[in-house]
């Protein structure tokens, strides 16, 4: 009646995308941006967010041309083998990215919460829990984040605001000095973290003339919202640590949380509790990619059985675990992934949808 129809509401889409985008961006981006652009990283965030919005408009145009969600389009709109190839490529991309997310997530948890525990065990738990979350389908995932939204966002914003008292203007005074090459790189970096927007092509909207209009409208609010959060976080981090220190920190936003001291004598430091923010946001991103890894495999499988089969869930999950563990064991795999993500993923996500529209089957 109301559940398991593959659709999620606008509010769910908005909240889900905010979680997908803001978690890894606030966690990983600031030190890289600080290294590349310093205070002018602010512009990089603004420009990157703008690029994300343009990309979203482009995806909206693609949706309109397809007239349906991408999965249906790949089944019915293009050559069968081309459709299968694209499914495989998206599956590989999803698994690789999920593996990277799992790697970052495990690192963060081990570094901040369970230093004495084995990396493999933490990773295994994270990936297994993510698989369980994915087994409930997209609606189940969307519902979790619909409920958690304010519980995560309000404490985060409150903590960031609490850090204002240690803010030093001197650290952000160099905001007008920037190097255009580095600014370009910074912008690209911000845009890279907005690439989960690609999966909006798979969201099921109403079958209407302007297919995808509502989806694009909703997600653009998420992009703007995440951009503002990222911008605010970056300014505060910059004002608290300065560009040089910021560039050297592993997870500066977590460090910032640990420096905030509350008045009174109870719950003095909230950094451990505040890790819940990245716990849930990184799970959102990991789940997003694992979900699409599983979904692509399901799309490639014969359609006789409606329900998700155990192996369709297990194979991508194991693959994600192996990718994450490989990155952990050997830094070369990390460099390989970053190389792929920087130079392969973006062209794929930009070019392939347009190509598919161009080579669509004539009715």
């Amino acid at each position, binding site marked *: 009646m109301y559940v398991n129809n593959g659709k999620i*509401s606008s509010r769910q889409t908005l909240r889900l995308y905010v979680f997908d985008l803001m978690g890894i961006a606030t966690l990983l981006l600031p030190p890289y941006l600080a290294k590349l652009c310093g205070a002018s990283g602010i512009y990089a965030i603004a420009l990157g967010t703008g690029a994300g919005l343009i990309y979203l408009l482009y995806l909206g145009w693609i949706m309109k041309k397809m007239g349906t969600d991408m999965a249906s389009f790949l089944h019915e709109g293009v050559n069968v083998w081309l459709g299968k190839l694209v499914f495989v490529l998206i599956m590989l991309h999803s698994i690789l990215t999920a593996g990277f997310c799992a790697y970052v997530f495990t690192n963060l948890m081990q570094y901040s919460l369970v230093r004495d525990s084995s990396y493999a065990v933490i990773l295994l738990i994270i990936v297994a829990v993510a698989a369980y979350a994915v087994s409930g389908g997209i609606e189940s995932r969307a519902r979790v984040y619909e409920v958690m939204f304010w519980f995560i966002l309000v404490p985060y914003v409150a903590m960031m605001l609490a850090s204002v008292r240690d803010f030093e203007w001197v650290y952000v005074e160099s905001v007008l000095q920037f190097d255009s090459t580095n600014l370009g790189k910074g912008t690209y970096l911000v845009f890279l973290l907005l690439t989960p927007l690609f999966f909006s092509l798979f969201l099921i909207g109403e079958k209407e003339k302007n297919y995808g209009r509502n989806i694009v409208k909703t997600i653009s609010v998420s992009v703007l919202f995440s951009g503002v959060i990222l911008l605010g976080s970056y300014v505060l981090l910059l004002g608290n640590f300065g560009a040089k220190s910021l560039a050297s920190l592993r997870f500066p936003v977590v460090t910032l949380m640990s420096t905030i001291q509350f008045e009174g004598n109870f719950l003095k430091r909230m950094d451990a*509790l505040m890790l819940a923010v990245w716990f849930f946001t990184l799970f959102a991103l990991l789940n997003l990619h694992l979900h699409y890894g599983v979904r692509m495999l399901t799309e490639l499988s014969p359609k006789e059985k409606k329900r998700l089969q155990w192996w369709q869930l297990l194979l991508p999950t194991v693959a994600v675990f192996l990718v994450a563990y490989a990155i952990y064991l050997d830094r070369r795999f990390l460099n390989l992934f970053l190389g792929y993500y920087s130079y392969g993923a973006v062209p794929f996500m930009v070019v392939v949808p347009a190509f598919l529209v161009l080579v669509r089957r004539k009715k």
Partner: protein
Amino acid sequence: MQKQLISQHIEENEKAVRQAFSDCDDLKVRKLSIGKNGSVKGFVCYIEVNAGNNMVNVLGRMLAYLEGLSDEQVVENVKGNAFALSDVEPYEYMEDAILGVLIGDSVFFVDGVARALKIPDQGYPKMGVSKSEAEKVVRGSDESFTESEKANTALIRKRIRNTQLKVREFQVGVRSFTNVAIVYVEGLADPKLIQEIHARLTEYDIDGVMDSGVMEQLAEESWLSPFPQFQSTRRPDRAAMEVLNGKIVVLVDNSPVALLLPTDVNSFLKTTDDYYNRFHMATFARIIRYVAAFFALTLPGLYLAMTNFHTQILPTPLLMSFWQARQGVPFPAALEVLLMELSFELIREAGVRLPGTMGNTIGIVGGLIIGQAAVEANLVSPIVVIVVAFTALCSFAIPNEEFAFSFRILKFVLIALSAWLGFFGFLIGIFLVLVHLASLKSFDVPYLSPYVGAQLNEYQDEKDSVVRFPLRMIWKRPIYANPHERTKLKKKEK
């Protein structure tokens, strides 16, 4: 609307009554043959359990009076109400007669007479109706469901005097033939849901059904989940209120517990007096209950994570006092918490099984004396006693026992995860519970409603969630009600 006059023809009257009470298995129509030759047809109709001694007496006297009369005399006597019985009053209109039945009277129709006779009865059942002990409220009715399904349907009908309140009865149990009734308001409940619950309740051949809990377990979709997917209540006012919201009530004979469906998390944390009290009070009570539910699940786990893994959260003096309190305790903190929690569950179980006053005694003996002795013997630290006691208090604040039980069970999972992995394990546990709740549904309604999918009902359901808006603002029925009948409150047009 124009009222319909009672017909002279008994068949038309019977048809009208049966039509008005279609799908109302609690309505009884007893046909009679009256007069010297027994050739005058008549019938008496009433809600089943309402036929008390008064009705039998009055009807008996009437029939005795009519027994010796010819057909014409019977008709004349009924027309003129010549029984010299003060209890009997005539009805001219069918709607009044139907309302009379709904109020709890019996109504007597005779062929050839364009009126019906009301035989007043004692009204709705009082016999065996006891005070609600399990779901106490500060304000509101004290009545509780009984062990008779018939009486229970009558207790709902007492509150909703409408022929659209339907009671569909059937038997379950190949050897027990237990009566089961599905009660709903036609037009408000989703017809697909009525079919589905009927199908689920009759899906199994079972020897016997001794309580509604058996039907609940057999009809649940996610039967491995610790969370109940039916709401249970012992309160007729709760059942009646939910029926008016579009829910369906399942009553099982010999069980004082009614099942309500569909349900959601929010329903388990509501009480009937939330609606009887002003919205400030209701909202405050609800916030307290939500917080209590959270701590009933998380407090021991959170305590372990904070004291064993992330001591930096706590100020040093507090940490020192914890440490001092634990001096001499031979067990690790996790085992200490686990022992205390298990002891508490033991006390609770013993208290429930013992007869009334002894049950209370065991609570005092267990809670105070054993707890105190355990602290003095250095078996547990005082802080753990406080944590466990507070957790127990929180679980008692959850109004629904089955729902509270799921929190009590999952609390142990969180204890284990937190003891193993600290706050990370705690978060994993919370996330797992959330994911499970998000995937759970009760008859296709998301379990986390109205916090998810609220747009389907224009966000109106959120007005009756943690914050209970003023009653005049809660004008719409919840999502599970028939989409065409969602308005439940509107101002009368002047």
